């Protein structure tokens, strides 16, 4: 029997004042005029709660760019959903924040790009760091659970200790240090972002030390770089198994980047019920369970731990979405990952941090 989705990721808009070079949004962004209306989102939240979902992650783009965000939070909360706002903080004034709190917001995740202002702004492609620091103060003065999120990569990883110290000063309940995952804009910019093995190992040591030191005070969670793992991640907890994502125009996707896979047609909440899409639609059934699996996944003891890894990554790297995730050391195509890592260790872009704006080379494409 198929379970209900535990969490619904609501990409309220693709509009964003930042241009982060590792953004997980698709390269082709949804325009404002095709976004779902307030009433359509409210309907989606009611259906999600009815279906048995517990969490709703309000994300984007920048969700604060939606003028109806307080109303959407209020509605999701009234439906009994645990509301999580994932924001860059840009555009979040104190009065607006107070509206969100009054609307029943449970948790907020605020992103930072680096510990130093010039470097953070360079990575975000926008002057945002100081604004974020102000927003962190506003958030902390209220009683809403607070996570600081920092994405780390080749360019900023040398500041990791400083980044952790910055986060500590902001007094969140939780700190998430996420290595870049190579989807969307991050995949386009992989040459400038993929860290070396040495950088990765050093970062893990720093994170472990922080976890120990901050235990009971700040929970430090980490997202590991799967290019360096022996086994793949259980992407989304398995295709169509734990979570679903609704993009700004209402398409229901099994994950952030599923639209890269050719030949899949994604249903829209404007055309069908969420329950039907979750249970019956072809796209959600395509890689659900174990029947689609090739060897070595099919006969592997780990198949119920990682579900064969990530379908999008399999497609982007091997050209076949139904192949074993190439990051798996058992995958027949694993050498493609090893090559990428090797090429990057030789020719990856040199570190541009702490250079002045004039000296910095254009090493990546900013998210549009």
């Amino acid at each position: 029997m198929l379970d209900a989705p535990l969490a619904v990721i609501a990409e309220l808009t693709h509009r964003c004042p930042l241009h982060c070079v590792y953004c997980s949004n698709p390269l082709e962004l949804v325009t404002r005029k095709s976004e779902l209306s307030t009433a359509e989102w409210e309907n989606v939240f009611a259906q999600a709660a009815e279906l048995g979902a517990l969490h709703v992650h309000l994300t984007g783009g920048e969700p604060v760019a939606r003028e109806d965000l307080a109303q959407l939070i209020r509605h999701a909360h009234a439906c009994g959903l645990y509301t999580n706002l994932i924001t860059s903080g840009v555009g979040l004034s104190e009065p607006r924040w107070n509206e969100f709190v009054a609307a029943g917001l449970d948790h907020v995740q605020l992103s930072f790009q680096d510990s130093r202002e010039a470097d953070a702004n360079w990575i975000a492609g926008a002057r945002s760091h100081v604004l974020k620091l102000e927003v962190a103060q506003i958030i902390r003065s209220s009683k809403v659970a607070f996570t600081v999120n920092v994405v780390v990569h080749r360019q900023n990883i040398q500041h990791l200790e400083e980044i952790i110290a910055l986060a500590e000063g902001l007094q969140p309940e939780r700190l998430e240090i996420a290595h870049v995952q190579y989807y969307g804009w991050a995949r386009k910019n992989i040459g400038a972002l993929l860290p070396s093995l040495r950088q990765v190992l050093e970062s893990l040591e720093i994170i472990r030390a922080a976890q120990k030191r901050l235990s009971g005070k700040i929970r430090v969670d980490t997202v590991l770089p799967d290019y360096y793992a022996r086994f793949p991640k259980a992407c989304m907890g398995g295709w169509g198994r734990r979570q679903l994502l609704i993009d700004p125009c209402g398409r229901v996707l099994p994950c952030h980047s599923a639209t890269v896979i050719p030949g899949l047609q994604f249903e829209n909440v404007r055309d069908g019920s969420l329950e039907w899409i979750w249970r019956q639609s072809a796209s959600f059934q395509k890689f659900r369970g174990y029947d689609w699996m090739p060897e070595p996944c099919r006969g592997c003891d780990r198949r119920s731990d990682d579900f064969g890894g990530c379908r999008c990554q399999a497609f982007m790297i091997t050209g076949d979405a139904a192949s074993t995730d190439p990051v798996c050391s058992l995958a027949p195509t694993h050498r493609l990952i090893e090559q990428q890592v090797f090429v990057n260790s030789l020719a990856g872009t040199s570190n541009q941090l702490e250079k002045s704006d004039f000296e910095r080379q254009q090493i990546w494409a900013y998210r549009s």
Partner: protein
Amino acid sequence: MPLQSSSRPRLTIGCRAKSEGENWIVIFPEGVLRLQKTARAVLERCDGERTFEEIIKELQALYSASDPVKIRKDAEMFLERLRERRVVDF
């Protein structure tokens, strides 16, 4: 600071509990815990008012057939673990 008799454990902000039949679900950022009988009995007493000592006394009365020393030890481990996950504060 480790859990002490005088500690008053409570759910951390951002953690919400609700009933699901006999069980309890605790929802927190990025996660869910499903708690059955004894675990529920411990956590529903963590209201920030009762001390750990008072909670243990109540549990020992509730499960009078079980070893009282083991009840204390199990509850302590359980709460320490939840604190590491930032689900409980004390």
